[in-house]
């Protein structure tokens, strides 16, 4: 068994291992460290002596490392004695585990990783580390930050959770719905980063986006009665379905109207539509509405044949349940398709007048496009050049500059 095999087992088992260890030890940071040590040991020993039950091996080794660590802490000697005498520890390692309990453990792990005491960056790093099982190096690569920064975020996050005395348990039912929103937003941030990298030279980082999809699927399996989880899953699947057509062979972005729709991932579209159906049992929430918009695009044969009226209605609904300037801007784009660029420009100018999206390259991008369609070429060029200056993604910037140049 090589490194890739260890990674494969770790990907499948890490959340369950860390979750179970956290419950045994009551110490989330310790559990995570012990699990990491077990993986390090596996990387050394498995190539020479492959275990018959790799998951059990990791769990048993991690548990031993956790007990070692507790033993070293003199102040926790009593707890160690208790642990060592606890029969549930051994039975769980022997594979006699209660699957329902494990599910609750993994869910609790998701809620802890996305706990409100943590900064948004820490929530993202911790979720990718302890729930998805990514290494600090992988997280650093995904978010284009130095490895020590990720390590520091994770260490600080674990200390914060310990200092705040966050218990290892599912939030009470009343609180859960509210906290679930936080978990969903972390998954959405991860997906969005993969879907359109905020900086750097690549438009899409599919691995990051797929990691978010996978975590969202897990959450949907554990919380099947929460429509918004299915809504987010639908949104991610339907957005990711377009990835194969979103970039050209050279990595440059391809706009929606120029995409070869035959390259869309139809099984992802089908999964997205299934998830959307499950999301819409009691009316759609913000993620479900965005997914419904994505579904309208995904099922249209072309930009012209898209049901833009429906998209305008969906954006209006979204603007009511989750008002935001970005939603308003997207509504303007849809309005341009149904009622023409002049009506859309009025919406954009209102946004600018209220200064609700300062510094974003999206406002001048849309304004530039609308002005170009109205034949106001020099104003359009100035807007697109402004958009290029504000845009941090190199691929997107070069498209904007090309469009601006075409207007002179």
């Amino acid at each position: 068994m090589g490194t890739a095999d260890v990674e494969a087992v770790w990907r499948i088992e890490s959340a369950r291992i860390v979750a179970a260890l956290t419950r045994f030890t009551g110490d989330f940071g310790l559990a995570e460290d012990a699990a990491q040590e077990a993986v390090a040991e596996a990387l050394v020993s498995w190539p020479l002596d492959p275990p018959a039950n790799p998951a059990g091996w990791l769990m048993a080794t991690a548990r031993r490392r956790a007990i070692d660590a507790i033993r070293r802490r003199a102040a926790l000697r009593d707890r160690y004695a208790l642990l060592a005498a606890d029969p549930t520890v051994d039975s769980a390692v022997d594979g006699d585990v209660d699957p329902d309990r494990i599910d609750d453990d993994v869910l609790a792990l998701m809620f802890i990783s996305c706990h409100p005491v943590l900064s948004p960056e820490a929530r993202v790093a911790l979720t990718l580390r302890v729930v998805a099982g990514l290494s600090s190096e992988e997280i650093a690569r995904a978010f284009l930050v130095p490895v020590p920064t990720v390590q520091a975020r994770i260490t600080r996050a674990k200390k914060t959770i310990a200092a705040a005395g966050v218990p290892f348990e599912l939030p009470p039912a009343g609180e859960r719905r509210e906290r679930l929103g936080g978990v969903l937003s972390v998954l959405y941030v991860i997906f969005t980063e993969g879907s359109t990298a905020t900086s750097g030279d690549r438009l899409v980082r599919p691995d990051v986006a797929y990691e978010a999809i996978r975590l969202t699927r897990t959450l949907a399996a554990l919380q099947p009665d929460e429509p918004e989880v299915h809504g987010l899953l639908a949104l991610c699947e339907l957005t990711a379905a377009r990835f194969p057509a979103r970039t050209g062979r050279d990595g440059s972005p391809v706009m929606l109207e120029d995409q070869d729709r035959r390259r869309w991932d139809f099984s992802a579209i089908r999964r997205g539509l299934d998830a959307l159906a499950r999301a819409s049992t009691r009316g759609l929430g913000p993620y479900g509405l965005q997914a419904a918009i994505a579904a309208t695009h995904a099922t249209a044969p072309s930009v012209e044949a898209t049901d833009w009226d429906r998209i305008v209605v969906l954006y209006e609904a979204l603007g009511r349940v989750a008002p935001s300037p970005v939603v308003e801007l997207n509504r303007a784009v849809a309005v341009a398709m149904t009622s023409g660029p002049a009506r859309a420009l009025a919406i954009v100018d209102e946004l600018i007048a209220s200064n609700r999206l300062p510094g974003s390259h999206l406002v001048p991008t849309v304004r530039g496009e609308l002005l170009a369609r109205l034949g106001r070429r020099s104003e359009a060029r100035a807007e697109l050049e402004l958009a290029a200056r504000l845009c941090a993604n190199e691929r997107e910037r070069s498209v904007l500059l090309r469009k601006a140049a075409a207007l002179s």
Partner: protein
Amino acid sequence: MAQYMLIMRGTDESNAAMMANIDEMMATSRQFIDDLFKAGVFVAAEGLDDAAQGVVVDFSGEAPVVTDGPYGETKELFGGYFMLDVASKEEAVEWARRVPAAPGSKIEVRRVLGGDETPESDA
């Protein structure tokens, strides 16, 4: 992420063994699929009806010939599949190790080509 198909290849003996314990097999299969769901990797899984109920369309002649068999010559039959969305071939193999399969059967792990990929690009 890539999609892999885990193709179940039973033998007459392993299929018979499976049918003899069908309730237990169904329960363990459901548990396995549940695990796949919770790991976020499940795409699809289906079992196929008895091979004797199928037909073969044979292209060895000038025109395709449809016959009900022959299956007797092949010992290992394609009995069903799991489609998984995983990060690596190793992960697909690790899941394949965990499939509840009857003794004697085999599982073939094949990557599913995406978009405009051709088999050559898999090399």
